């Protein structure tokens, strides 16, 4: 069976228009550019649950009073359906659990501080947010530093 992939530029057009039209149609407003963000929605979900159980007052966005933001679960569910449907699901054992744990931990804390995962940073660039553009420039610079490091390591190994 030949695998057919979606072209990435088509993903950009479909997902981008879905994100913007979602905010326009459902008036998903108080923080704008908020209809798709994995760190912020996860933060609201976890903090909302903790606030409900322990009566604490952790930070949540204003929109979380109107909706339960379980985006993280449903992204996994949608991708799982796609992987099953096109037979790409296969179990791979973990090679470096601690490294990936620390990476996820860091990305979450940095994402809480600057209000966005890489996806929402790109969304905010589209919205014309100055802080989004600065964060995007920083992200590209960080990726460049990371690629230089990866090249160094691969040269040493060979």
């Amino acid at each position: 069976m030949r695998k057919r992939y979606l072209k990435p530029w088509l993903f950009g057009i479909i997902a981008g228009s879905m994100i913007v039209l979602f905010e326009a149609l459902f008036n998903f407003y108080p923080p704008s550019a908020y209809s798709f963000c994995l760190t912020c929605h996860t933060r609201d979900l976890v903090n909302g649950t903790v606030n409900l159980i322990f009566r604490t007052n952790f930070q949540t966005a204003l929109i979380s009073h109107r909706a339960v933001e379980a985006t993280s679960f449903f992204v996994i569910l949608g991708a799982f359906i796609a992987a099953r449907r096109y037979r790409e699901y296969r179990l791979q054992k973990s090679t470096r659990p601690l490294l990936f744990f620390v990476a996820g931990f860091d990305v979450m804390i940095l994402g809480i501080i600057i209000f966005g995962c890489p996806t929402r940073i790109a969304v905010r660039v589209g919205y014309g947010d100055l802080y989004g553009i600065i964060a995007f420039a920083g992200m590209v610079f960080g990726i460049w530093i990371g690629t230089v490091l990866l090249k160094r390591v691969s040269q040493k190994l060979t």
Partner: protein
Amino acid sequence: MLTLALAILGGCIGFLAQRSRMCFVAGFRDYFIVRDRELLSGIFSFIVTIWFLTSVLYSLNVIRSGIPQYGDAVIRRSVEYLRFSLSHVLRISNFLVGGQGEAAGLSSHFMNKFIYVTFAGGLLIGFVSTLAGGCVLRQHVLFAQGNMNAFYYIAGFYTAVVVYYVFLFKFFVKLY
């Protein structure tokens, strides 16, 4: 109702991301290493689509172009916000011509700590995501495909929320 719509949006984007192997970090990484432009075209079409649609909807007054309220009230008050707009351009030109009244506002904007925090945070996000081999969306998709490295990534992701707000919030709130 809103929850259901959000779930459908998330599911659709997860489905499409699995099909197109889209990643917001790997696009730049592939370009810097092997000059492969395929995923980079995805990132730029994403940004250009959003830019086009938001500028159309701003002009139709469908989306309110007000202040986005970042987080809770304390942070909202302290985080200064600026949108690229005609008034901003006018303010800069006023500054260049020599308007003394606006100069304080502009310099206070460049003195704003949060700009540097944003740049440094973006830099570290890019660096750590490159080492982990994908952005947050890509890790969720990899976990759905059965990659157990991504499972540990997401476990760290959820642990960090609780750890941040219980232990680290007192220190990091000074950054705003």
